[in-house]
């Protein structure tokens, strides 16, 4: 029945709705550029969501761990074979996104007899200077976007857009501490916006359907702060720094323990874990 164009469009729309629902369960992921490098931040309940892909490239994902793992392996293969046969500087987040992630994810999304990837992907590549930083986000339908200073994965495009506008209101963070504070704040806002979506009735009578509203109103600061503190108490904050100031072998660094403690804004307490 999918041979009819209308049916196909309908099936894709259903799929979109199904995937949107899936992502309301996930945890947002934020990547921000600062003078020291690129900071990636998310929260997990067991399975890590941030990984090293190549010398200067980190991967972050939101969605199903099995799908993320599958894409992670294909990216690792692609990056290392390319880095070996050509040169490490030929491995870029741009090429990995455009050749490795986007076409695969798009194809799976549109082949309606196959399962789609329930995953949103972020690839961050740290440059020698902040202007050379690249952050690519790929949506579950294969649509990718490029930015040099921020990357946001949240449950909906509209939320990502609202947070992006929020980020742009201030100038680039001048230190790692500030970057962490602002990334945490974005995470808190995104987390509060994960589940609830205003929807609008479009059309009238029989042909009407519910469509997600593009208008996103950001929750207030105090709610975001509480959400972050709640997360710090119950879940695991996962932080990675792609450090541009050290040698290529140490670029990817997990921020944890004391180092993270010191960097965290004073307003929050990180409970000590056994």
């Amino acid at each position, binding site marked *: 029945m999918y041979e009819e164009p209308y049916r196909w469009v309908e099936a894709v729309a259903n799929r979109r709705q199904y995937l949107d629902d899936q992502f309301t369960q996930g945890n947002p992921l934020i990547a921000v550029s600062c003078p020291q490098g690129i900071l990636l931040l998310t929260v997990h309940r067991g399975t890590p969501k941030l*990984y*090293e*892909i*190549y*010398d200067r490239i980190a991967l972050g994902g939101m969605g199903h761990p099995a799908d993320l793992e599958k894409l992670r*392996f*294909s990216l*690792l*293969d692609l990056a*290392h*074979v390319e*880095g*070996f*046969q050509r040169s490490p500087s030929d491995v870029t987040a741009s090429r990995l996104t455009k050749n490795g992630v986007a076409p695969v994810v798009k194809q799976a999304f549109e082949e309606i007899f196959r399962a789609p990837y329930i995953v949103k992907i972020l690839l961050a590549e740290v440059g020698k200077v902040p202007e050379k930083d690249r952050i690519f986000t790929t949506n579950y339908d294969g649509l990718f976007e490029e930015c040099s200073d921020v990357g946001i994965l949240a449950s909906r495009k509209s939320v990502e857009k609202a947070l992006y506008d929020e980020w742009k209101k201030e100038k680039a963070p001048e230190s790692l501490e500030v970057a962490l504070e602002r990334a945490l704040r974005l995470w808190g806002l995104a987390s509060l916006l994960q589940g609830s979506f205003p929807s609008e009735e479009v059309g009238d009578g029989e042909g009407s359907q519910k469509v997600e509203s593009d208008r996103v109103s950001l929750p207030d600061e105090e709610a975001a702060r509480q959400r972050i503190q709640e997360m710090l108490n119950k879940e695991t904050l996962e932080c990675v720094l792609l450090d541009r100031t050290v040698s290529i*072998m*140490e670029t990817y660094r997990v921020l944890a323990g004391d180092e993270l403690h010191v960097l965290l804004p004073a307003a929050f307490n990180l409970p000590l874990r056994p």
Partner: protein
Amino acid sequence: MGGQGDFFQLLKDQGYEFSCRGNERGSVSATAYPLTTGTTVLALKYQDGVLVAGDRRATAGNLVMYDRTDKVLEIDRYSVLAIAGVPATAFEMARVLGHSFKYYRRSQLQDLSFEGKLRALSTLLKNNVPAALAGTGAVVPIFAGFDSEDGIGKIFFYDILGAEFEGVDYAVSGSGSSTIRGIMFYLNQWGAGPISEYSEEDALTLALRLLTSAAEFDSATGGVNTQAKLYPVVKRITAQGVQPFSVDRLKNLYTGKVAGHV
């Protein structure tokens, strides 16, 4: 394949072949084309870890090909390959190893064990046997690294077939190695104390003196050329990882403790 973290297999699947087959028709004979070889590399244990040093000359027959070769190659944060033999194969080995280790670490989310690293190098040498026997690709490396499991630095040396031997106190390789092997044995046995108790400064001085001795007797080993600011490559491996010594440090030690009688 990716699930096992085996980069070498991944390369094979992509149609890559590591070793040139020496015994096929049309293979080159080593005697007809002099290959770039000749070297002195050494690794020794001192009180903080392991120190690895190498001269910088590459020769082909009686020709000096190059005087700024780096034969002490960082494979990852904690290991170093000091190469002696045919540079083309040796550099390729270093590249395969470097990528293998990081591919394993990133895909398996844990570091390859020190034994695993040694085995990887053995495998490469074994695959290289046909080329080594044909005379086109013999490599006799020293592998040194910090074993984070045991918390100590370790030194291993190999023969061209891939057998690994642990150098308890030190290891040497290359055409100039026979000159310094005796000196090291003597110093370790009857010197002021075992080399493993040397301070960093003493170990570094010894390495410079040994390479200078090798250069004295082996034409294929390059010496120090102060005018050209040409010094050996020396790196240390400690719990903090691999760090090269700066040219300034080498220069000071060389002029103070190596160039003349002390």
